[in-house]
């Protein structure tokens, strides 16, 4: 009598990351070497091997071998690396949170109010196009070489991006579903949490993922210019000493942590709030 919408039964993926909708899902039982995690690992290992071979073969003066970088990372871990890493992550965390909150608020107001949007749109576009370096320099000049100026500079760079994404989210809110909430007399709290917010989750997650990538890069520049600790500060010190091994060791440590946050926090979160799209 009624035919189901999908003619093929959906196969629930038993492995891999949530956002891959590739052909792998159709394979009945994947071989171990097809696991996406292993592919990711293998590509990194191949890169390291290539690097090592190049260094051994050509012995370049300005490129240390990966083995040297790893052993330097080991020794730096005994030294001040963790302290500077902590300082940087603290700045990233604070700036990221403030930028998200402000950006989401501005984006939602602009998305829902045509009048506010008309007034604020050109300022937003302006803010999006001011180079990060300019904001950073101005903040340090105006507010001094302190952490408040540093974090303000990052927030000013990031919040407009979040606002633009969330403005799209607010515009995409389905008024037909909001009508359902009204007809069925849902409480404001329930309307917000069960009808409104779920429509924004994809946009919040997108803003957060893009935000993390942008914020930590800006934080390093901020530290390089006007802070006396943090990974950026250390990088500038080692730049002056021409210590390439140390620069790469710091980079490695920091990138691993950011990758970890992405893989262990953001991606699982995204999978959780968009689970209904896949089941």
């Amino acid at each position: 009598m009624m035919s189901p919408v999908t003619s093929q039964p959906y196969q629930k993926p038993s492995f891999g990351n949530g956002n891959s909708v590739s052909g792998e899902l159709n394979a009945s039982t994947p071989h171990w070497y097809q696991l996406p995690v292993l592919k990711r690992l293998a590509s990194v290992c191949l890169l390291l091997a290539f690097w090592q071979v190049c260094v051994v073969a050509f012995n370049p003066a300005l490129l240390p071998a990966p083995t040297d970088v790893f052993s330097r990372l080991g020794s730096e871990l005994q030294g001040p690396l963790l302290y500077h890493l902590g300082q940087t992550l603290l700045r990233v965390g604070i700036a990221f949170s403030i930028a998200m909150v402000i950006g989401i608020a501005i984006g939602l107001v602009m998305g829902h109010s045509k009048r506010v949007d008309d007034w604020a749109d050109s300022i937003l576009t302006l803010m999006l196009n001011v180079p990060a370096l300019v904001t950073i320099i101005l903040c340090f000049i105006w507010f001094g070489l302190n952490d408040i100026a540093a974090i303000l500079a990052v927030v000013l760079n990031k919040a407009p991006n979040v606002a633009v994404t969330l403005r799209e989210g607010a515009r995409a809110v389905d008024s037909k579903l909001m009508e359902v909430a009204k007809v069925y007399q849902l409480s404001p709290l329930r309307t917000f949490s069960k009808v409104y917010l779920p429509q924004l989750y994809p946009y919040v997650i997108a803003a957060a993922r893009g935000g993390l990538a942008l914020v930590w890069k800006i934080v390093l520049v901020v530290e390089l210019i006007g802070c006396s600790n943090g990974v950026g500060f250390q990088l500038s010190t080692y730049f002056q000493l021409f210590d390439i091994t140390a620069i790469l060791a710091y980079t490695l440590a920091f990138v691993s942590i950011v990758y970890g946050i992405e893989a262990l926090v953001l991606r699982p979160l995204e999978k959780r709030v968009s689970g209904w799209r896949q089941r």
Partner: protein
Amino acid sequence: MRIEVKLKAFEAATPLIADLNFSVEEGEIVALIGPSGAGKSTLLNIIAGLDTDYDGNIANVPERPVGLMFQEARLMPWLTALENITLVAPASHPDPQSEAKKLLSLVGLEKDINSYPARLSGGMAKRLALARAMMFNPGVLLMDEPFSSLDAPAAESLRRLLLTLKKEKPFSIIYVTHDLKEAVTIADRVLILDAKPMTIVHQEIISLPRPRFLHDEAVNEVCKPLYNAFPALLYGDTDR
């Protein structure tokens, strides 16, 4: 429930609804039928309280709330079938979970309790929307061409389901359609509407015994003189 709409206009020069008055008795099914674009959905929005910008009055509102079943199912895609139903349960409800489960089995969706709407067919989604409307326990249920997107057998079975649910917990229905045969099959009373502005031009009381089916000869007999009397209003649609 007594509905009086003196005037509803989006632009002052062209009234959409003018002097449209009718009442619905307890447990009665009233079908509204008229050409597309006449403003039937707007009228339902007024009765449901979604649109308050009109001149008129809705009186003798029943104690239980007014429910509205939209033309589309309008389910929350991120909630399971069960969650879609419990969503509309009043805060004071003692046990929404078990009533929702009962409703799901009444509409034949007991196996899809944890399915997301994207996994349901059009007919199943409509059943779920109907179960949701029942959870709201309406005194009057407004239905805006609720089954028009379904194929004939699915629509037939949903109309039967609707009458079964109505017996469980009686409520009145205002049923908007553009199909006279469907109106005669489902309703106790059919109101034929004219457009620009929308008013009632004819009322027909349907006393045929139930169950009635769309292609019953008796339904045809009732329809024939009406088609002859109001050809412009009843034939104007694309599917006839």
